[in-house]
């Protein structure tokens, strides 16, 4: 990671004790497309806006939500290419765990390892932090789980969360709408309604709601 000319880290402390590069990375995330996740009683929903730069783009080629293992998926807000690198590394780590223990990796372990990778890039020579925040949704022995992983490498478990543009509106909406015993279908509905708050056009909302019904 970084050649010998750059054996020093580019992420350095400011006098106030902040890592400015990480703050900037979070700004990059904050201006990315909105994504959100909701943990239901029997599953987890993750959703994101898929806004393409032009109608000429082949929408089937764009995949914003990716699977890491058959029971863990991830969505991001921020720089797409950075998320692809993380998805690749996480998938490899999940497979390595599987190869060693012949067991599917628990969600917490995968999140922990992904977060460790993100932290590495804030303390290694010649590299910059990742410009994405990830929402990792998984279902394992401990039930449905939802984690957010930030460019700094810190991770949090959420019942419901949003990232990217309009995050304060989205979170306020989720706070009002969220209940602990929500079923998966309710959660999908709520996710779409939350995205609607300043993101989707009324025509798109009608479309999606109809699909769900």
């Amino acid at each position, binding site marked *: 990671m970084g050649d010998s000319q750059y054996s020093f880290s580019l992420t350095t402390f400011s006098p106030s004790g902040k890592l400015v590069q990480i703050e900037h990375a979070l700004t990059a995330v904050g201006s990315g497309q909105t994504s959100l996740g909701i943990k239901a009683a029997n599953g987890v929903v993750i959703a994101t806006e898929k806004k393409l730069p032009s109608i000429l783009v082949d929408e089937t080629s764009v995949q914003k939500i990716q699977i890491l293992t058959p029971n863990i998926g991830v969505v991001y807000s921020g720089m797409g290419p950075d998320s692809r690198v993380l998805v690749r590394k996480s998938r490899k780590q999940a497979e390595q765990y599987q190869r*060693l*223990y*012949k*067991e599917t990796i628990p969600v917490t372990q995968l999140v922990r390892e992904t977060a460790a990778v993100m932290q590495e890039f804030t303390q290694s020579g010649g590299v910059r932090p990742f410009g994405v925040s990830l929402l990792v949704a998984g279902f394992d022995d401990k039930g449905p789980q939802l984690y957010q992983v930030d460019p700094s490498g810190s991770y949090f478990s959420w019942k419901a969360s949003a990232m990217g543009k309009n995050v304060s509106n989205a979170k306020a909406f989720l706070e009002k709408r969220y209940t602990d015993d929500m079923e998966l279908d309710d959660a999908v509905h709520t996710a779409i309604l939350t995205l609607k708050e300043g993101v989707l056009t009324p025509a798109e909302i009608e479309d999606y709601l109809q699909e769900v019904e």
Partner: protein
Amino acid sequence: MSIFEYNGSALVAMVGKNCFAIASDRRLGVQLQTVATDFQRIFKIHDKLFVGLSGLATDAQTLYQRLVFRHKLYQLREERDMKPETFASLVSAILYEKRFGPYFCQPVIAGLGDEDKPFICTMDSIGAKELAKDFVVAGTASESLYGACESMFKPDMEPEELFETISQALLSSVDRDCLSGWGGHVYVV
């Protein structure tokens, strides 16, 4: 003399009704000379998982230290004990890492899995797993042990009967093997 016969060992594990038993001999030898009569070959990984290591004693001890290390880290990270099947996969992977310079050990793994279902398995020195539903054997006395277990084993034995059976199988087999013996250690869980 083969490297596996340098120290001498006898190991056997049996499945009972919601329980398992694992037993080993106590002799440590240097070829024909007996050097210790209280040598421990069976180790506890956690309350419901035991591993016995036959073969070269130094490799058995080193391998045990490595396995305990890995399990402790697993416990800290995942905040739970390892299941026996998972542990067996781990041992197999560790042994295969040394495919071209192996540990001269044959492990026997015995544990209780989910809902206290007994699990036993053995593997060769490079990690080829052998799962069994009734009993597994390892060590210099393994051929006698196979015969003894085959004739004495019954499925679904209660712990007390399982203890008697495994002890008799072990003692009668090591009597026919000059490199193992001097009593036995038996664990019934």
